Protein backbone atom coordinates (compact mmCIF):
# COMPACT_ATOMS: atom_id res chain seq x y z
CA UNK A 1 0.00 0.00 0.00
CA UNK A 2 2.67 2.47 1.05
CA UNK A 3 4.80 1.69 -2.03
CA UNK A 4 1.84 2.18 -4.38
CA UNK A 5 0.83 5.49 -2.80
CA UNK A 6 4.45 6.62 -2.77
CA UNK A 7 4.91 5.79 -6.49
CA UNK A 8 1.77 7.75 -7.39
CA UNK A 9 2.85 10.69 -5.23
CA UNK A 10 6.33 10.76 -6.78
CA UNK A 11 4.80 10.67 -10.25
CA UNK A 12 2.43 13.52 -9.36
CA UNK A 13 5.31 15.55 -7.95
CA UNK A 14 7.37 14.96 -11.13
CA UNK A 15 4.51 16.19 -13.33
CA UNK A 16 4.12 19.31 -11.20
CA UNK A 17 7.89 19.92 -11.25
CA UNK A 18 7.91 19.68 -15.07
CA UNK A 19 4.96 22.06 -15.45
CA UNK A 20 6.58 24.39 -12.91
CA UNK A 21 9.79 24.34 -14.96
CA UNK A 22 7.88 25.42 -18.09
CA UNK A 23 6.14 28.19 -16.14
CA UNK A 24 9.46 29.29 -14.64
CA UNK A 25 11.20 29.27 -18.03
CA UNK A 26 8.41 31.53 -19.31
CA UNK A 27 8.88 33.94 -16.40
CA UNK A 28 12.63 34.01 -16.71
CA UNK A 29 13.23 34.08 -20.44
CA UNK A 30 10.22 35.80 -22.01
CA UNK A 31 11.04 39.48 -21.95
CA UNK A 32 13.65 40.90 -19.57
CA UNK A 33 12.18 41.57 -16.12
CA UNK A 34 14.91 44.14 -15.40
CA UNK A 35 14.10 46.17 -18.51
CA UNK A 36 10.43 45.80 -17.66
CA UNK A 37 10.92 47.24 -14.16
CA UNK A 38 13.51 49.95 -14.89
CA UNK A 39 12.55 51.02 -18.39
CA UNK A 40 14.75 51.12 -21.50
CA UNK A 41 17.18 53.88 -20.50
CA UNK A 42 18.63 52.61 -17.20
CA UNK A 43 22.42 52.51 -16.87
CA UNK A 44 24.21 49.14 -16.82
CA UNK A 45 25.07 49.70 -13.14
CA UNK A 46 21.41 50.21 -12.23
CA UNK A 47 20.52 47.07 -14.21
CA UNK A 48 23.14 45.01 -12.42
CA UNK A 49 21.91 46.28 -9.05
CA UNK A 50 18.28 45.47 -9.92
CA UNK A 51 19.30 42.08 -11.25
CA UNK A 52 21.09 41.31 -7.98
CA UNK A 53 18.12 42.58 -5.97
CA UNK A 54 15.74 40.26 -7.89
CA UNK A 55 18.18 37.39 -7.52
CA UNK A 56 18.60 37.06 -11.28
CA UNK A 57 22.40 36.73 -10.95
CA UNK A 58 22.02 33.47 -9.01
CA UNK A 59 22.47 30.07 -10.71
CA UNK A 60 19.47 28.61 -12.55
CA UNK A 61 18.57 25.93 -10.01
CA UNK A 62 18.61 28.45 -7.12
CA UNK A 63 16.23 30.72 -9.04
CA UNK A 64 13.98 27.76 -9.88
CA UNK A 65 13.97 26.65 -6.25
CA UNK A 66 12.95 30.13 -5.13
CA UNK A 67 10.21 30.21 -7.80
CA UNK A 68 8.82 26.89 -6.59
CA UNK A 69 8.92 27.98 -2.96
CA UNK A 70 6.90 31.10 -3.78
CA UNK A 71 4.52 29.28 -6.14
CA UNK A 72 3.67 26.73 -3.46
CA UNK A 73 2.52 29.66 -1.30
CA UNK A 74 0.38 30.90 -4.20
CA UNK A 75 2.66 33.83 -5.00
CA UNK A 76 3.06 34.24 -8.78
CA UNK A 77 3.95 37.94 -8.75
CA UNK A 78 2.10 40.78 -10.49
CA UNK A 79 0.04 40.56 -13.66
CA UNK A 80 1.89 42.53 -16.36
CA UNK A 81 -1.37 43.81 -17.83
CA UNK A 82 -3.33 44.74 -14.72
CA UNK A 83 -0.41 45.31 -12.30
CA UNK A 84 -2.25 43.44 -9.55
CA UNK A 85 -1.19 40.24 -7.75
CA UNK A 86 -1.94 37.17 -9.86
CA UNK A 87 -3.32 35.33 -6.83
CA UNK A 88 -5.93 38.08 -6.29
CA UNK A 89 -6.97 37.90 -9.95
CA UNK A 90 -7.46 34.15 -9.72
CA UNK A 91 -9.32 34.41 -6.40
CA UNK A 92 -11.75 36.84 -8.07
CA UNK A 93 -12.27 34.59 -11.09
CA UNK A 94 -12.41 31.23 -9.29
CA UNK A 95 -16.08 31.42 -8.12
CA UNK A 96 -17.33 32.09 -11.67
CA UNK A 97 -15.52 29.07 -13.13
CA UNK A 98 -16.44 26.76 -10.26
CA UNK A 99 -20.13 27.69 -10.34
CA UNK A 100 -20.23 27.20 -14.10
CA UNK A 101 -18.40 23.87 -13.92
CA UNK A 102 -20.58 22.51 -11.12
CA UNK A 103 -23.77 23.61 -12.89
CA UNK A 104 -22.53 21.88 -16.06
CA UNK A 105 -21.67 18.69 -14.15
CA UNK A 106 -25.06 18.75 -12.43
CA UNK A 107 -26.80 19.20 -15.79
CA UNK A 108 -24.77 16.33 -17.30
CA UNK A 109 -25.63 13.92 -14.48
CA UNK A 110 -29.24 15.01 -13.87
CA UNK A 111 -30.17 14.82 -17.56
CA UNK A 112 -27.74 12.15 -18.77
CA UNK A 113 -28.64 9.38 -16.31
CA UNK A 114 -32.46 9.54 -16.78
CA UNK A 115 -32.02 9.68 -20.56
CA UNK A 116 -29.69 6.69 -20.44
CA UNK A 117 -32.10 4.71 -18.26
CA UNK A 118 -35.04 5.53 -20.54
CA UNK A 119 -33.21 4.56 -23.74
CA UNK A 120 -32.16 1.27 -22.12
CA UNK A 121 -35.65 0.39 -20.85
CA UNK A 122 -37.55 1.43 -23.98
CA UNK A 123 -35.07 0.98 -26.83
CA UNK A 124 -37.75 0.92 -29.54
CA UNK A 125 -39.66 4.07 -28.62
CA UNK A 126 -39.31 7.14 -30.84
CA UNK A 127 -38.19 9.21 -27.86
CA UNK A 128 -35.19 6.90 -27.35
CA UNK A 129 -34.26 7.27 -31.00
CA UNK A 130 -34.51 11.05 -30.62
CA UNK A 131 -32.25 10.92 -27.53
CA UNK A 132 -29.66 8.92 -29.46
CA UNK A 133 -29.72 11.43 -32.32
CA UNK A 134 -29.27 14.27 -29.81
CA UNK A 135 -26.31 12.44 -28.28
CA UNK A 136 -24.74 11.96 -31.72
CA UNK A 137 -25.02 15.70 -32.30
CA UNK A 138 -23.59 16.42 -28.87
CA UNK A 139 -20.54 14.28 -29.59
CA UNK A 140 -19.83 15.52 -33.10
CA UNK A 141 -20.43 19.28 -32.78
CA UNK A 142 -17.53 21.31 -31.40
CA UNK A 143 -18.30 23.02 -28.08
CA UNK A 144 -18.03 26.57 -29.39
CA UNK A 145 -20.49 25.88 -32.23
CA UNK A 146 -23.05 24.53 -29.75
CA UNK A 147 -22.66 27.74 -27.76
CA UNK A 148 -23.09 29.91 -30.85
CA UNK A 149 -26.19 27.97 -31.94
CA UNK A 150 -27.74 28.26 -28.45
CA UNK A 151 -27.05 32.02 -28.45
CA UNK A 152 -28.53 32.35 -31.92
CA UNK A 153 -31.75 30.56 -30.96
CA UNK A 154 -32.35 31.51 -27.31
CA UNK A 155 -30.71 34.93 -27.08
CA UNK A 156 -30.97 36.46 -30.56
CA UNK A 157 -34.12 34.90 -32.07
CA UNK A 158 -36.25 34.26 -28.98
CA UNK A 159 -34.64 36.78 -26.63
CA UNK A 160 -35.34 34.57 -23.58
CA UNK A 161 -31.89 34.35 -22.06
CA UNK A 162 -28.82 36.60 -21.85
CA UNK A 163 -25.91 35.69 -24.11
CA UNK A 164 -22.94 37.00 -22.15
CA UNK A 165 -21.70 37.74 -18.63
CA UNK A 166 -22.83 36.45 -15.24
CA UNK A 167 -25.80 38.73 -14.57
CA UNK A 168 -26.00 40.30 -11.10
CA UNK A 169 -23.72 38.74 -8.52
CA UNK A 170 -23.95 38.83 -4.72
CA UNK A 171 -20.88 38.80 -2.47
CA UNK A 172 -20.92 36.10 0.20
CA UNK A 173 -17.79 36.75 2.23
CA UNK A 174 -15.06 36.69 -0.42
CA UNK A 175 -17.13 34.57 -2.81
CA UNK A 176 -19.09 36.25 -5.60
CA UNK A 177 -22.10 34.11 -6.44
CA UNK A 178 -24.61 34.41 -9.27
CA UNK A 179 -26.81 31.69 -7.80
CA UNK A 180 -28.89 34.02 -5.63
CA UNK A 181 -30.21 36.45 -8.22
CA UNK A 182 -32.70 35.79 -11.02
CA UNK A 183 -30.46 37.36 -13.65
CA UNK A 184 -27.50 35.36 -12.38
CA UNK A 185 -29.41 32.09 -12.68
CA UNK A 186 -30.72 33.01 -16.13
CA UNK A 187 -27.20 33.84 -17.27
CA UNK A 188 -26.00 30.44 -16.05
CA UNK A 189 -28.41 28.36 -18.17
CA UNK A 190 -26.91 28.60 -21.67
CA UNK A 191 -23.23 28.36 -20.62
CA UNK A 192 -23.80 25.34 -18.40
CA UNK A 193 -25.75 23.50 -21.12
CA UNK A 194 -22.98 24.28 -23.62
CA UNK A 195 -20.28 23.09 -21.26
CA UNK A 196 -22.15 20.02 -20.02
CA UNK A 197 -23.61 18.72 -23.29
CA UNK A 198 -20.60 16.59 -24.23
CA UNK A 199 -20.38 15.05 -20.75
CA UNK A 200 -24.16 14.54 -20.75
CA UNK A 201 -24.01 12.46 -23.94
CA UNK A 202 -21.07 10.53 -22.52
CA UNK A 203 -22.95 9.75 -19.30
CA UNK A 204 -26.14 8.91 -21.20
CA UNK A 205 -24.37 6.41 -23.48
CA UNK A 206 -22.51 4.87 -20.57
CA UNK A 207 -25.66 4.54 -18.45
CA UNK A 208 -27.48 3.01 -21.41
CA UNK A 209 -24.85 0.37 -22.20
CA UNK A 210 -24.28 -0.52 -18.52
CA UNK A 211 -28.02 -0.74 -17.94
CA UNK A 212 -28.54 -2.98 -20.97
CA UNK A 213 -25.81 -5.26 -19.68
CA UNK A 214 -27.16 -5.42 -16.13
CA UNK A 215 -30.71 -6.07 -17.36
CA UNK A 216 -29.44 -9.31 -18.91
CA UNK A 217 -27.83 -10.47 -15.65
CA UNK A 218 -29.12 -13.40 -13.61
CA UNK A 219 -30.18 -11.46 -10.55
CA UNK A 220 -32.54 -9.34 -12.68
CA UNK A 221 -34.09 -12.42 -14.24
CA UNK A 222 -34.45 -13.88 -10.78
CA UNK A 223 -36.07 -10.71 -9.46
CA UNK A 224 -38.52 -10.81 -12.39
CA UNK A 225 -39.22 -14.48 -11.68
CA UNK A 226 -40.03 -13.61 -8.11
CA UNK A 227 -42.78 -11.41 -9.50
CA UNK A 228 -41.39 -8.09 -8.32
CA UNK A 229 -42.96 -5.08 -10.01
CA UNK A 230 -40.99 -3.65 -12.97
CA UNK A 231 -40.35 -0.37 -11.21
CA UNK A 232 -38.62 -2.10 -8.32
CA UNK A 233 -36.56 -4.34 -10.63
CA UNK A 234 -35.47 -1.47 -12.83
CA UNK A 235 -34.59 1.06 -10.19
CA UNK A 236 -33.70 -0.94 -7.08
CA UNK A 237 -31.90 -3.87 -8.74
CA UNK A 238 -30.67 -2.63 -12.10
CA UNK A 239 -29.98 1.09 -11.80
CA UNK A 240 -28.04 0.72 -8.56
CA UNK A 241 -25.59 -1.66 -10.16
CA UNK A 242 -25.00 0.64 -13.10
CA UNK A 243 -24.25 3.68 -10.99
CA UNK A 244 -20.73 2.77 -9.82
CA UNK A 245 -18.98 3.08 -13.21
CA UNK A 246 -21.17 6.06 -14.12
CA UNK A 247 -20.15 7.97 -11.02
CA UNK A 248 -16.47 7.10 -11.58
CA UNK A 249 -16.57 8.48 -15.11
CA UNK A 250 -18.51 11.54 -13.99
CA UNK A 251 -15.85 12.25 -11.37
CA UNK A 252 -13.03 11.81 -13.87
CA UNK A 253 -14.76 14.22 -16.24
CA UNK A 254 -14.77 17.02 -13.68
CA UNK A 255 -11.24 18.07 -14.65
CA UNK A 256 -12.20 18.10 -18.32
CA UNK A 257 -15.17 20.31 -17.54
CA UNK A 258 -12.95 22.90 -15.83
CA UNK A 259 -10.51 22.72 -18.76
CA UNK A 260 -13.23 23.00 -21.41
CA UNK A 261 -14.62 25.99 -19.52
CA UNK A 262 -11.93 27.98 -21.38
CA UNK A 263 -13.97 27.59 -24.58
CA UNK A 264 -17.40 28.16 -23.04
CA UNK A 265 -16.19 31.19 -21.10
CA UNK A 266 -14.86 32.73 -24.32
CA UNK A 267 -18.13 32.14 -26.18
CA UNK A 268 -20.25 33.63 -23.39
CA UNK A 269 -17.71 36.20 -22.12
CA UNK A 270 -18.05 34.51 -18.73
CA UNK A 271 -15.63 36.24 -16.31
CA UNK A 272 -13.85 33.07 -15.15
CA UNK A 273 -10.31 31.72 -15.06
CA UNK A 274 -10.46 30.34 -18.62
CA UNK A 275 -11.21 33.77 -20.08
CA UNK A 276 -8.39 35.18 -17.93
CA UNK A 277 -6.04 32.59 -19.44
CA UNK A 278 -7.02 33.30 -23.06
CA UNK A 279 -6.58 37.03 -22.46
CA UNK A 280 -3.19 36.42 -20.85
CA UNK A 281 -2.08 34.49 -23.97
CA UNK A 282 -3.20 37.33 -26.25
CA UNK A 283 -1.48 40.02 -24.20
CA UNK A 284 1.60 37.89 -23.35
CA UNK A 285 0.81 38.29 -19.63
CA UNK A 286 3.38 35.70 -18.52
CA UNK A 287 2.70 35.55 -14.74
CA UNK A 288 -1.03 34.91 -15.26
CA UNK A 289 -0.28 32.28 -17.89
CA UNK A 290 2.26 30.50 -15.74
CA UNK A 291 -0.11 30.48 -12.79
CA UNK A 292 -2.96 29.03 -14.89
CA UNK A 293 -0.60 26.37 -16.24
CA UNK A 294 0.33 25.30 -12.71
CA UNK A 295 -3.24 25.50 -11.43
CA UNK A 296 -4.81 23.37 -14.18
CA UNK A 297 -1.97 20.81 -13.91
CA UNK A 298 -2.50 20.63 -10.15
CA UNK A 299 -6.24 20.06 -10.65
CA UNK A 300 -5.67 17.16 -13.05
CA UNK A 301 -2.93 15.63 -10.93
CA UNK A 302 -5.16 15.72 -7.84
CA UNK A 303 -8.19 14.25 -9.64
CA UNK A 304 -6.13 11.43 -11.15
CA UNK A 305 -4.42 10.75 -7.84
CA UNK A 306 -7.74 10.51 -6.01
CA UNK A 307 -9.21 8.21 -8.67
CA UNK A 308 -6.12 5.97 -8.61
CA UNK A 309 -6.27 5.72 -4.83
CA UNK A 310 -10.02 5.00 -4.92
CA UNK A 311 -9.47 2.22 -7.47
CA UNK A 312 -6.79 0.83 -5.22
CA UNK A 313 -9.16 0.86 -2.28
CA UNK A 314 -11.93 -0.82 -4.30
CA UNK A 315 -10.01 -3.33 -6.42
CA UNK A 316 -7.99 -5.93 -4.42
CA UNK A 317 -6.18 -7.18 -7.56
CA UNK A 318 -4.15 -3.95 -7.70
CA UNK A 319 -2.92 -4.62 -4.20
CA UNK A 320 -1.69 -8.09 -5.21
CA UNK A 321 0.16 -6.68 -8.26
CA UNK A 322 1.83 -4.09 -6.10
CA UNK A 323 2.96 -6.77 -3.63
CA UNK A 324 4.31 -8.97 -6.43
CA UNK A 325 6.31 -6.14 -7.98
CA UNK A 326 8.19 -5.53 -4.76
Amino acid sequence: MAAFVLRRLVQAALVMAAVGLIAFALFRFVGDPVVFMLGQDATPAERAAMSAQLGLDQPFHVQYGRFVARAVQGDFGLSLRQLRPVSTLFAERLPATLELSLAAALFAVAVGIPMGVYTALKPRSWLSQAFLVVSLIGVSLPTFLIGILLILVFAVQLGWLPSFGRGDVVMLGGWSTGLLTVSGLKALILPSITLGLFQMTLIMRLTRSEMLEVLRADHIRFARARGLPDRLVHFRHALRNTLVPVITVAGLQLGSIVAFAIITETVFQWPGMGLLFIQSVMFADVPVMGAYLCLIALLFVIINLVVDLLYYAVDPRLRLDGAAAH
Partner: protein
Amino acid sequence: MPAAESRWRRWLDSDIAWSFRRSPVAILAAVVALICVVGALFAGWIAPHDPFDLASLELMDALLPPAWTAEGRATYLLGTDDQGRDVLSGILYGARISLLVGVGSVVVAMVLGVSLGLLAGYAGGSIEAFIMRVADVQLSFPAILIALLVDGVVRVAMPDSAHGGQALWVLIASIGLSGWVQYARTVRGSTLVEKRKEYVQAARVIGRHPVAIMFHHLLPNVLGPVLVIATIHLATAIITEATLSFLGVGMPVTTPSLGTLIRVGNDFLFSGEWWITVFPGLALVALALSVNLLGDWLRDALNPRLR
Protein backbone atom coordinates in the same frame (compact mmCIF):
# COMPACT_ATOMS: atom_id res chain seq x y z
CA MET B 1 -2.50 -0.82 -69.15
CA PRO B 2 -3.49 -4.37 -68.23
CA ALA B 3 -1.43 -4.42 -65.01
CA ALA B 4 -3.11 -1.33 -63.66
CA GLU B 5 -6.48 -2.65 -64.73
CA SER B 6 -6.03 -5.95 -62.91
CA ARG B 7 -4.90 -4.11 -59.80
CA TRP B 8 -8.07 -2.02 -60.04
CA ARG B 9 -10.11 -5.23 -60.43
CA ARG B 10 -8.43 -6.72 -57.42
CA TRP B 11 -9.22 -3.60 -55.39
CA LEU B 12 -12.88 -3.74 -56.46
CA ASP B 13 -13.08 -7.38 -55.38
CA SER B 14 -11.40 -6.77 -52.02
CA ASP B 15 -13.19 -7.01 -48.69
CA ILE B 16 -12.86 -3.30 -48.04
CA ALA B 17 -14.43 -2.28 -51.35
CA TRP B 18 -17.23 -4.75 -50.74
CA SER B 19 -17.87 -3.41 -47.27
CA PHE B 20 -17.79 0.15 -48.66
CA ARG B 21 -20.47 -0.63 -51.27
CA ARG B 22 -22.63 -2.19 -48.59
CA SER B 23 -22.54 0.85 -46.28
CA PRO B 24 -24.70 3.80 -47.34
CA VAL B 25 -23.32 5.90 -44.45
CA ALA B 26 -19.75 5.37 -45.65
CA ILE B 27 -20.69 6.26 -49.25
CA LEU B 28 -22.49 9.43 -48.16
CA ALA B 29 -19.62 10.42 -45.86
CA ALA B 30 -17.10 9.78 -48.66
CA VAL B 31 -19.09 11.96 -51.07
CA VAL B 32 -19.34 14.83 -48.55
CA ALA B 33 -15.66 14.54 -47.63
CA LEU B 34 -14.72 14.45 -51.33
CA ILE B 35 -16.75 17.61 -52.02
CA CYS B 36 -15.04 19.36 -49.08
CA VAL B 37 -11.55 18.26 -50.14
CA VAL B 38 -12.04 19.12 -53.84
CA GLY B 39 -13.59 22.47 -52.91
CA ALA B 40 -10.66 23.22 -50.62
CA LEU B 41 -7.91 22.05 -52.96
CA PHE B 42 -9.26 23.88 -56.00
CA ALA B 43 -10.56 26.92 -54.11
CA GLY B 44 -8.66 29.20 -56.52
CA TRP B 45 -10.65 27.88 -59.51
CA ILE B 46 -14.01 27.07 -57.90
CA ALA B 47 -14.52 30.10 -55.65
CA PRO B 48 -16.65 32.74 -57.42
CA HIS B 49 -14.61 35.57 -55.86
CA ASP B 50 -11.11 36.02 -54.46
CA PRO B 51 -11.59 37.13 -50.82
CA PHE B 52 -7.91 38.20 -50.60
CA ASP B 53 -8.00 40.45 -53.66
CA LEU B 54 -8.59 43.83 -52.03
CA ALA B 55 -9.13 45.52 -55.40
CA SER B 56 -12.25 43.47 -56.16
CA LEU B 57 -13.95 44.18 -52.82
CA GLU B 58 -16.95 46.48 -52.93
CA LEU B 59 -17.97 47.97 -49.60
CA MET B 60 -21.35 48.61 -51.19
CA ASP B 61 -21.79 44.84 -51.27
CA ALA B 62 -21.07 44.42 -47.53
CA LEU B 63 -23.41 42.38 -45.30
CA LEU B 64 -25.58 41.06 -48.11
CA PRO B 65 -27.77 38.12 -47.02
CA PRO B 66 -27.78 34.78 -48.92
CA ALA B 67 -28.99 34.72 -52.53
CA TRP B 68 -32.37 33.11 -51.80
CA THR B 69 -33.53 35.88 -49.44
CA ALA B 70 -35.24 39.07 -50.64
CA GLU B 71 -32.17 41.36 -50.50
CA GLY B 72 -29.70 38.66 -51.59
CA ARG B 73 -27.85 38.72 -54.89
CA ALA B 74 -27.16 35.78 -57.16
CA THR B 75 -23.41 36.51 -57.39
CA TYR B 76 -23.05 36.06 -53.62
CA LEU B 77 -24.68 32.68 -53.06
CA LEU B 78 -24.17 32.59 -49.28
CA GLY B 79 -24.07 36.36 -48.74
CA THR B 80 -21.15 38.65 -47.86
CA ASP B 81 -19.39 39.77 -44.66
CA ASP B 82 -18.79 43.28 -43.33
CA GLN B 83 -15.97 43.95 -45.84
CA GLY B 84 -18.04 42.77 -48.80
CA ARG B 85 -16.18 39.45 -49.02
CA ASP B 86 -18.11 36.50 -50.46
CA VAL B 87 -18.88 34.04 -47.64
CA LEU B 88 -18.80 30.98 -49.95
CA SER B 89 -15.35 31.89 -51.29
CA GLY B 90 -14.14 32.53 -47.76
CA ILE B 91 -15.34 29.06 -46.73
CA LEU B 92 -13.55 27.38 -49.65
CA TYR B 93 -10.25 29.12 -48.89
CA GLY B 94 -10.77 28.63 -45.14
CA ALA B 95 -11.41 24.90 -45.57
CA ARG B 96 -8.06 24.69 -47.36
CA ILE B 97 -6.26 26.10 -44.30
CA SER B 98 -8.28 23.88 -41.94
CA LEU B 99 -7.43 20.77 -43.98
CA LEU B 100 -3.78 21.80 -44.26
CA VAL B 101 -3.44 22.19 -40.48
CA GLY B 102 -5.43 19.00 -39.91
CA VAL B 103 -3.35 16.84 -42.26
CA GLY B 104 -0.11 18.48 -41.14
CA SER B 105 -0.73 17.85 -37.47
CA VAL B 106 -1.84 14.26 -38.14
CA VAL B 107 1.46 13.69 -39.97
CA VAL B 108 3.45 15.22 -37.08
CA ALA B 109 1.57 13.12 -34.51
CA MET B 110 1.90 10.00 -36.64
CA VAL B 111 5.66 10.32 -37.25
CA LEU B 112 6.31 11.12 -33.60
CA GLY B 113 3.95 8.49 -32.20
CA VAL B 114 4.95 5.66 -34.55
CA SER B 115 8.68 6.27 -33.98
CA LEU B 116 8.32 6.42 -30.20
CA GLY B 117 6.00 3.40 -30.21
CA LEU B 118 8.44 1.36 -32.30
CA LEU B 119 11.31 2.42 -30.08
CA ALA B 120 9.42 1.59 -26.88
CA GLY B 121 8.24 -1.78 -28.16
CA TYR B 122 11.54 -2.85 -29.69
CA ALA B 123 13.99 -1.47 -27.12
CA GLY B 124 12.00 -2.33 -23.99
CA GLY B 125 13.50 -1.73 -20.56
CA SER B 126 13.84 1.74 -19.12
CA ILE B 127 13.34 3.47 -22.51
CA GLU B 128 9.97 1.78 -22.84
CA ALA B 129 9.05 2.56 -19.24
CA PHE B 130 9.93 6.24 -19.69
CA ILE B 131 8.07 6.71 -23.00
CA MET B 132 4.95 4.94 -21.78
CA ARG B 133 4.94 6.85 -18.48
CA VAL B 134 5.05 10.14 -20.35
CA ALA B 135 2.26 8.85 -22.59
CA ASP B 136 0.15 7.90 -19.55
CA VAL B 137 0.60 11.33 -18.01
CA GLN B 138 -0.27 13.11 -21.25
CA LEU B 139 -3.31 10.89 -21.71
CA SER B 140 -4.70 12.07 -18.38
CA PHE B 141 -5.07 15.59 -19.84
CA PRO B 142 -7.57 16.30 -22.65
CA ALA B 143 -5.72 16.61 -25.98
CA ILE B 144 -7.29 19.96 -26.78
CA LEU B 145 -6.00 21.39 -23.48
CA ILE B 146 -2.45 20.23 -24.30
CA ALA B 147 -2.70 21.79 -27.77
CA LEU B 148 -4.03 25.03 -26.26
CA LEU B 149 -1.29 25.20 -23.62
CA VAL B 150 1.54 24.39 -26.08
CA ASP B 151 0.14 26.92 -28.55
CA GLY B 152 -0.20 29.55 -25.81
CA VAL B 153 3.31 29.01 -24.47
CA VAL B 154 4.86 29.20 -27.97
CA ARG B 155 2.89 32.36 -28.79
CA VAL B 156 4.03 34.11 -25.65
CA ALA B 157 7.62 32.85 -25.94
CA MET B 158 7.86 33.88 -29.60
CA PRO B 159 5.60 36.90 -30.20
CA ASP B 160 6.37 36.89 -33.95
CA SER B 161 4.75 33.50 -34.35
CA ALA B 162 1.20 34.85 -34.14
CA HIS B 163 1.20 36.10 -37.72
CA GLY B 164 0.46 34.55 -41.10
CA GLY B 165 2.46 31.54 -42.16
CA GLN B 166 4.17 31.16 -38.79
CA ALA B 167 0.87 30.65 -36.99
CA LEU B 168 0.23 27.70 -39.31
CA TRP B 169 3.41 25.93 -38.20
CA VAL B 170 2.80 26.67 -34.53
CA LEU B 171 -0.70 25.18 -34.83
CA ILE B 172 0.52 22.10 -36.70
CA ALA B 173 3.23 21.50 -34.09
CA SER B 174 1.01 22.01 -31.05
CA ILE B 175 -1.91 19.92 -32.33
CA GLY B 176 0.56 17.27 -33.51
CA LEU B 177 2.24 17.16 -30.09
CA SER B 178 -1.13 16.75 -28.41
CA GLY B 179 -2.03 13.63 -30.42
CA TRP B 180 0.97 11.29 -30.59
CA VAL B 181 -0.02 9.10 -27.63
CA GLN B 182 -2.68 7.03 -29.42
CA TYR B 183 -0.22 6.11 -32.19
CA ALA B 184 2.57 5.25 -29.77
CA ARG B 185 0.41 2.98 -27.62
CA THR B 186 -1.03 1.08 -30.59
CA VAL B 187 2.32 0.69 -32.39
CA ARG B 188 4.06 -0.42 -29.20
CA GLY B 189 1.39 -3.10 -28.73
CA SER B 190 1.78 -4.51 -32.25
CA THR B 191 5.59 -4.21 -32.06
CA LEU B 192 5.66 -6.35 -28.92
CA VAL B 193 3.80 -9.07 -30.85
CA GLU B 194 5.77 -8.74 -34.09
CA LYS B 195 9.26 -8.69 -32.60
CA ARG B 196 8.91 -12.28 -31.39
CA LYS B 197 8.27 -13.55 -34.93
CA GLU B 198 10.89 -15.40 -37.00
CA TYR B 199 11.50 -12.74 -39.62
CA VAL B 200 12.61 -10.26 -36.98
CA GLN B 201 14.84 -12.83 -35.31
CA ALA B 202 16.31 -13.70 -38.71
CA ALA B 203 17.05 -10.06 -39.42
CA ARG B 204 18.71 -9.77 -36.05
CA VAL B 205 20.80 -12.90 -36.62
CA ILE B 206 22.18 -11.64 -39.94
CA GLY B 207 23.25 -8.54 -38.03
CA ARG B 208 21.00 -5.78 -39.35
CA HIS B 209 21.08 -2.52 -37.46
CA PRO B 210 18.26 -2.12 -34.88
CA VAL B 211 17.07 1.05 -36.61
CA ALA B 212 16.87 -0.82 -39.92
CA ILE B 213 14.92 -3.64 -38.25
CA MET B 214 12.48 -1.17 -36.72
CA PHE B 215 11.76 0.86 -39.84
CA HIS B 216 12.39 -1.70 -42.56
CA HIS B 217 11.00 -4.89 -41.09
CA LEU B 218 8.66 -3.96 -38.25
CA LEU B 219 7.13 -0.73 -39.56
CA PRO B 220 5.21 -2.19 -42.54
CA ASN B 221 3.69 -4.81 -40.27
CA VAL B 222 2.42 -2.46 -37.57
CA LEU B 223 0.94 0.23 -39.86
CA GLY B 224 -2.55 -1.28 -40.33
CA PRO B 225 -4.26 0.12 -37.19
CA VAL B 226 -2.33 3.40 -37.59
CA LEU B 227 -4.39 4.24 -40.69
CA VAL B 228 -7.63 3.98 -38.73
CA ILE B 229 -6.31 6.15 -35.90
CA ALA B 230 -5.07 8.71 -38.43
CA THR B 231 -8.48 9.04 -40.09
CA ILE B 232 -10.33 9.58 -36.82
CA HIS B 233 -7.53 11.83 -35.58
CA LEU B 234 -7.91 14.00 -38.69
CA ALA B 235 -11.46 14.88 -37.65
CA THR B 236 -10.31 15.69 -34.11
CA ALA B 237 -7.39 17.76 -35.41
CA ILE B 238 -9.67 19.81 -37.68
CA ILE B 239 -12.00 20.53 -34.75
CA THR B 240 -9.08 21.37 -32.44
CA GLU B 241 -7.70 23.81 -35.00
CA ALA B 242 -11.11 25.42 -35.40
CA THR B 243 -11.46 25.74 -31.63
CA LEU B 244 -8.04 27.37 -31.20
CA SER B 245 -8.74 29.76 -34.07
CA PHE B 246 -12.13 30.54 -32.59
CA LEU B 247 -10.50 31.34 -29.24
CA GLY B 248 -8.25 33.81 -31.07
CA VAL B 249 -5.00 31.89 -30.60
CA GLY B 250 -5.01 30.11 -33.97
CA MET B 251 -4.98 31.37 -37.54
CA PRO B 252 -5.00 35.21 -37.85
CA VAL B 253 -7.72 37.11 -39.70
CA THR B 254 -5.41 37.72 -42.66
CA THR B 255 -5.25 33.99 -43.48
CA PRO B 256 -8.47 32.72 -41.94
CA SER B 257 -9.37 29.08 -41.36
CA LEU B 258 -12.97 27.97 -40.79
CA GLY B 259 -12.55 28.63 -37.05
CA THR B 260 -11.34 32.19 -37.66
CA LEU B 261 -14.31 32.83 -39.98
CA ILE B 262 -16.71 31.65 -37.26
CA ARG B 263 -14.96 33.89 -34.72
CA VAL B 264 -15.21 36.94 -36.98
CA GLY B 265 -18.83 36.20 -37.87
CA ASN B 266 -19.72 35.74 -34.21
CA ASP B 267 -19.55 39.52 -33.72
CA PHE B 268 -22.38 39.98 -36.22
CA LEU B 269 -24.72 37.44 -34.64
CA PHE B 270 -26.57 40.07 -32.63
CA SER B 271 -27.18 42.45 -35.48
CA GLY B 272 -28.93 39.62 -37.33
CA GLU B 273 -26.20 38.74 -39.88
CA TRP B 274 -26.30 35.07 -38.99
CA TRP B 275 -24.98 33.79 -42.34
CA ILE B 276 -21.43 35.05 -41.72
CA THR B 277 -20.97 32.59 -38.88
CA VAL B 278 -23.52 29.83 -39.53
CA PHE B 279 -22.26 28.76 -42.99
CA PRO B 280 -18.60 28.35 -41.99
CA GLY B 281 -19.92 26.43 -38.97
CA LEU B 282 -21.94 24.09 -41.19
CA ALA B 283 -18.91 23.57 -43.44
CA LEU B 284 -16.81 22.67 -40.40
CA VAL B 285 -19.40 20.19 -39.14
CA ALA B 286 -19.79 18.62 -42.61
CA LEU B 287 -16.02 18.22 -42.95
CA ALA B 288 -15.36 16.88 -39.45
CA LEU B 289 -18.42 14.62 -39.32
CA SER B 290 -17.81 13.02 -42.73
CA VAL B 291 -14.16 12.30 -41.94
CA ASN B 292 -15.19 10.89 -38.56
CA LEU B 293 -17.83 8.59 -40.09
CA LEU B 294 -15.31 7.39 -42.70
CA GLY B 295 -12.90 6.59 -39.87
CA ASP B 296 -15.59 4.66 -37.99
CA TRP B 297 -16.41 2.68 -41.10
CA LEU B 298 -12.73 1.95 -41.83
CA ARG B 299 -12.24 0.71 -38.27
CA ASP B 300 -15.15 -1.72 -38.60
CA ALA B 301 -14.15 -2.79 -42.11
CA LEU B 302 -10.59 -3.60 -41.07
CA ASN B 303 -11.65 -5.36 -37.87
CA PRO B 304 -11.56 -9.10 -38.65
CA ARG B 305 -13.80 -9.90 -35.69
CA LEU B 306 -16.70 -7.93 -37.20
CA ARG B 307 -16.56 -9.65 -40.61
